[in-house]
């Protein structure tokens, strides 16, 4: 049987660190990158006699997530998940177990496909363990060092149904979920900083059977790329096992980014037995109808709606394939209001979209804070030919970095608009200086446009507009 006859069946668990000011159960700062062990107190250190008190903002963000994912929001409880590992000084993690706050929702991918959401529950994050010596590998390490700044940071774990059927679809699911979490300001979406972490449950099945195969959980997926690669690799591994008549063992596997493969974790002496029991220091969390109504009322426009808005602005004829990608990019990064505002002040939508999806997206954090009027002015200068695209991009980079007025930046960079006729004159000069190339161009060798444009750029100190040069060359050829 070939690989094509097999179908991967994937469910994803996404851990989302909530953007609160403080931890889930204490008033320590929730911040990434602070000096180790500077945000710790008796509660998150598990000192005797300390008591957890739930953060109202974390509950609210969990409800926003439930709402955005069409979940039922329910009265919920916390349990203790008991285990011995130095990343939790209490020797248990407080997590929602059989009574989670959000259940039974769904997420719709841009292509209309729905992925079920089984649950989205609250729990606390663990500390960060660094394995020292032996090249940092866990089994060769000499000892470990622990930083508890992250211990107690609020998380929502979003568990999908096994509705995902390919690596590409898994990637689209996480991209869409990330855009939603950013839209409701629950997450900063920074996978590289670990604020969004993904585990994948992967099994394979032959043909169109409803029966599910034995699954493996793949951990350590720190980017969308490694998520897709890990699912592809794990699918191939399971298929080759089954085709060789060997069983797939249910196990937890680790994605090895360097080797680009999944490896089994060292088998445990005994399966984990977490002995969950209700956390006696916390009471029922049951948001009433008023609170739920308020949250539902405050839900901002979702990515799907925002993409539809941009597509509508592009007008009849529909977006090109490149524009579909541009729309997805600006919405995923939360930059779509830049395009909408520019469009409403009369900027052509394709131009605003292109600059936002390329230049603004490359510096998204600063682009989100940019002065909207200045951004509009810059686009207008390009639209009216006062700046060439190359010049506009340079001014934009400066605008994001230092702020200021686009006209001032352009002047400082020496980007004065060329006087009418300058391009025409420069093209005429270049053409008469290269009669042989001109003859070939006139016989239809179109690629020589680049040759002439380069020379005109040299002659005008890169101030000429490439499109104008090309147009003038075409006009002369007749």
């Amino acid at each position: 049987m070939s690989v094509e006859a097999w179908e991967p069946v994937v469910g994803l668990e996404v851990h989302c660190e909530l953007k609160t000011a403080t931890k889930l159960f204490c008033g320590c700062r929730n911040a990434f990158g602070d000096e180790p062990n500077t945000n710790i107190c008796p509660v998150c250190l598990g000192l005797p006699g300390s008591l957890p008190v739930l953060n109202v903002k974390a509950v609210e963000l969990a409800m926003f997530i439930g709402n955005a994912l069409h979940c039922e929001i329910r009265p919920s409880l916390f349990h203790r998940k008991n285990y011995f590992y130095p990343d939790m000084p209490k020797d248990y993690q407080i997590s929602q177990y059989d009574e989670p706050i959000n259940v039974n929702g769904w997420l719709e991918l841009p292509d209309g496909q729905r992925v079920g959401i089984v649950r989205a529950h609250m729990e606390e994050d663990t500390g960060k363990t660094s394995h020292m010596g032996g090249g940092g590998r866990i089994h060769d390490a000499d000892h470990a060092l622990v930083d508890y700044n992250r211990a107690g940071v609020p998380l929502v774990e979003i568990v999908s149904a096994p509705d995902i059927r390919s690596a590409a679809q898994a990637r689209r699911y996480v991209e869409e979920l990330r855009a939603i979490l950013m839209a409701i300001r629950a997450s900063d979406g920074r996978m590289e900083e670990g604020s969004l972490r993904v585990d994948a449950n992967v099994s394979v099945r032959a043909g169109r059977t409803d029966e599910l195969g034995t699954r493996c959980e793949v951990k350590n997926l720190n980017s969308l790329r490694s998520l897709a690669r890990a699912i592809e690799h794990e699918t191939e591994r399971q298929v080759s096992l089954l085709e060789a008549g060997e069983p797939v063992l249910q196990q937890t596997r680790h994605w090895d980014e360097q080797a680009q493969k999944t490896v089994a974790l060292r088998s445990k002496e005994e399966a984990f037995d977490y002995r969950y029991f209700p956390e006696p220091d916390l009471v029922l969390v049951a948001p009433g109808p008023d609170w739920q109504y308020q949250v539902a009322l405050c839900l901002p426009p979702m990515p799907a709606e925002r993409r539809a808005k941009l597509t509508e602005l592009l007008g009849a004829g529909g977006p090109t394939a490149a524009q579909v990608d541009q729309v997805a990019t600006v919405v995923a990064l939360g930059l779509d209001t830049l395009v909408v505002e520019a469009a409403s002040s009369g900027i052509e939508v394709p131009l605003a979209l292109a600059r936002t999806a390329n230049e603004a997206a490359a510096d998204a954090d600063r682009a989100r804070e940019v002065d909207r009027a200045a951004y509009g002015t810059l686009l207008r200068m390009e639209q009216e030919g006062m700046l060439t695209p190359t010049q506009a991009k340079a001014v934009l980079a400066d605008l994001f970095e230092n702020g200021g007025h686009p006209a001032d930046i352009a002047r400082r960079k020496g980007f004065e608009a060329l006087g009418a006729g300058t391009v025409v004159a420069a093209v005429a000069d270049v053409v008469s200086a290269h009669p042989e190339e001109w003859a070939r161009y006139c016989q239809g060798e179109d690629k020589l446009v680049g040759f002439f444009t380069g020379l005109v750029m040299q002659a005008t100190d890169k101030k000429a507009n490439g499109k104008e040069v090309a147009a003038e060359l075409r006009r002369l050829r007749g």
Partner: protein
Amino acid sequence: MNEHGSARSERLTREDAAYVARLARVDLTEDELDLYAGQLAAVLDHAAQVAAIATSGVEPTAHTLPLRNVLRDDVVRPSLEREEVLAQAPRAEDGRFWVPRILGESP
């Protein structure tokens, strides 16, 4: 358990007690295991009596306190002094807690 709830049909065994001790990282001698297995079984028998009470018409409760939604505002409060905390740890290095070699991945 039988209809009077006076005894569990599956009484806690010595192996169960040894398993629980291992999970809790408690090192018990053979004599201690005999002693605690008996005591633990007695505690569970008592719980079985409670479980035998007919509760079909009673609402389940999540907590003995008649409270719900006990919440605090999301406001930063001062954390502890790092040096003071680390001074109380058995060993520290580079502003972090030093712990022995770990044998497996985080659960």
